[in-house]
């Protein structure tokens, strides 16, 4: 009886003091409980976009919010609204004193943000990155939205689906020297040689990441190679540029257009039947997976060395080293493109 009474008194005292200290709670206390917290405790997860007004990240936020409400976590979504590179750091540092449990960051400045993320880690906050990585020592995992192999294979497979097995196609790239473009091309060629050996890549033209240059290059390609069946643009301004050229040449549907780009700038061409497929990743899934991973790392359910991870309704994802792979790129077509707004 006496024991019961004293424990009740203790509980009341704890409740009283925790109520009083709502505002002055030491920042480390929120974080230190994060590591060994019981499942079921509501966590605060902070999601940092590169910039806040960007529709791409708004779309990530949608998925993230869905994940947070499934998990019963609180989601904070905040990021820079101007071009000040110090803003991301300031927001992260505010989150540190705020006492969040986990931070998931898309990094604008790799080196700069890493300083703040390391500081968060030293205070016991779990840190992961998504979309754009920080330095590896500043986070536990990177949610990698697409590997070069995934992108290259998806583009080539899509091209093969749309054309005859002996069709000619051409590539519009950003520049001949850009490292990521070269890497994607390497995998496009690998997939072609292995699986579609009769298809022929007739030309690679750079468009300097400009829509009008992509358009003029495509116009030139169409007259140089009259039996061209498909244009594959592997930089985002290239896709609408190539589509515009095909449309103006009156060859919509005869010459197919696919590419790596954003849904919004291609919607019109997709609905007109000029562009058949736009390839990227599903940004809502990216946000969803990121929040699930942040939650699991903070609860201690996901540790370095794990090779797979189950994220709610999306199922299981592969982990390669410290990269959680979002998996196969997503294909936007006439049927699904209107569901996305970025």
């Amino acid at each position, binding site marked *: 009886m006496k024991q019961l009474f004293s424990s009740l008194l203790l509980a009341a005292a704890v409740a009283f003091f925790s109520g009083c200290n709502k*505002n002055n709670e030491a920042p480390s206390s929120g974080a230190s409980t994060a590591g060994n917290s019981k499942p079921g405790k509501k966590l605060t997860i902070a999601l940092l976009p590169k910039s806040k007004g960007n529709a791409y990240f708004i779309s990530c936020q949608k998925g993230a919010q869905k994940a947070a409400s499934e998990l019963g976590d609180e989601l904070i979504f905040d990021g820079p609204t101007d071009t000040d590179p110090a803003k991301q*750091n300031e927001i992260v540092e505010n989150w540190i004193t705020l006492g969040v449990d986990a931070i998931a960051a898309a990094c604008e400045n790799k080196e*700069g943000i890493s300083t703040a993320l390391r500081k968060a880690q030293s205070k016991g906050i779990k840190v992961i990155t998504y979309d754009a990585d920080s330095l590896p020592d500043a986070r536990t995992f990177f949610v990698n939205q697409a590997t070069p192999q995934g992108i290259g294979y998806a583009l080539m497979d899509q091209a093969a689906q749309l054309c005859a097995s002996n069709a000619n196609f051409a590539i519009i790239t950003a520049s001949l020297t850009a490292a990521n473009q070269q890497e994607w091309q390497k995998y496009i060629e690998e997939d072609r040689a292995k699986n579609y050996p009769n298809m022929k890549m007739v030309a690679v033209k750079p468009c300097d990441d400009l829509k009008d240059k992509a358009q003029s290059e495509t116009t030139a390609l169409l007259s140089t190679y009259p039996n061209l069946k498909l244009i594959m643009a592997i930089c985002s301004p290239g896709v609408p540029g190539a589509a515009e050229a095909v449309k103006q040449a009156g060859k919509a549907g005869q010459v197919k257009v696919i590419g790596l780009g954003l849904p919004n700038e291609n919607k019109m061409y997709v609905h007109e039947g000029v562009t058949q497929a736009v390839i990227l990743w599903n940004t809502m899934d990216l946000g969803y997976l990121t929040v699930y991973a942040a939650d699991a790392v903070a609860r201690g359910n996901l540790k370095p060395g794990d090779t797979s991870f189950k994220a709610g309704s999306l199922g299981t994802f592969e982990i390669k080293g410290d990269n959680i792979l979002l998996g196969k790129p997503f294909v936007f077509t006439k049927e699904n493109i209107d569901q996305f707004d970025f």
Partner: protein
Amino acid sequence: MNTHKPAWKNVLLAHETILLVVLIAEWIFFDAIGRNFGTYDNTCDILRHSCEIGLLALAMTPVILTGGIDLSVGSLLGLCAILFGKFWRDAHMPIPEAAACTLAVGALAGGVNASLITLLNLPPLIVTLGTFSLFRGLAEAITHGVDTFTDFPSSFLFLGQERWLGIPAQAPVFIGALIFFWWLVHFSTFGRSYRAIGFAPEGTRYAGIPVGRRVAMTYVLAGIVSAIAAIIYTARLGQAKADAGNGYELYAITAVVLGGTSIFGGIGSVYGTLLGVAAIAVLQSGIVHALQPSEMAGMLTGALLILALTASVLPKMISRLRQRKSALRLAKQNT
């Protein structure tokens, strides 16, 4: 007879007092609704985040007091940051030497502003609008917009990220600058001449004060302080890139004007500027801690500026109205 108000009333209605009340109200408000806002850790963070803009605002105060303006400080911060990185990484200078060279660059750049304004008699707004583009353009050209300086030694990063005797390591630099500008504006003959220049440059010249030299000094000081801010900024972020300090000139000017310094010159104080910087910094941190979107900070800073200016003009307007009323009454009685 009612033009001579008691001294306590003057102090109470001074712009700075109103701003101090606003600042305290802000603090109490965010402490009540924000999570972990009033903690010591967060106070240190507020100090660290406002250090660079605070420094720029301090240096901007004498400039605006003379009736001038310096729009180039943010761009100069960017230029100094990448030159500091270049001196250290590419010229293999030790950090103190690189810092000294950066300060020299800052002084030189300030000197460019100063000589264009005082020797050629060009308007400060136009001159510094030009160097605003020039300095940022130079920074982008030198780095081709992509080169980033990083991997600074941890002994240097200490200045921006760690605590020294329990306070942020950059705080002593800021306090030093604060004491210097306080002395300069309020306790030296320079300060008196700045106000005089702001009120009436020609009259001041007839009074035998070397107006050109005094004005030039404020721009050179702004250049040096931009360089100091650049070094601290680099230490805080651990990187130097050409976009460092983007838009900081406007934050600094906002803080100075919020602090009660007249944009036409002649009136103003360093403690007003200090309060202005603090009011903006507390607001920006408070918004995040209250889990409100950070773009609210921009809106509220604007509202705060308008509110504070209105509040300090209102008492004067009321007393002017009263005077007019009593004058009318007198006129009526006489007729």
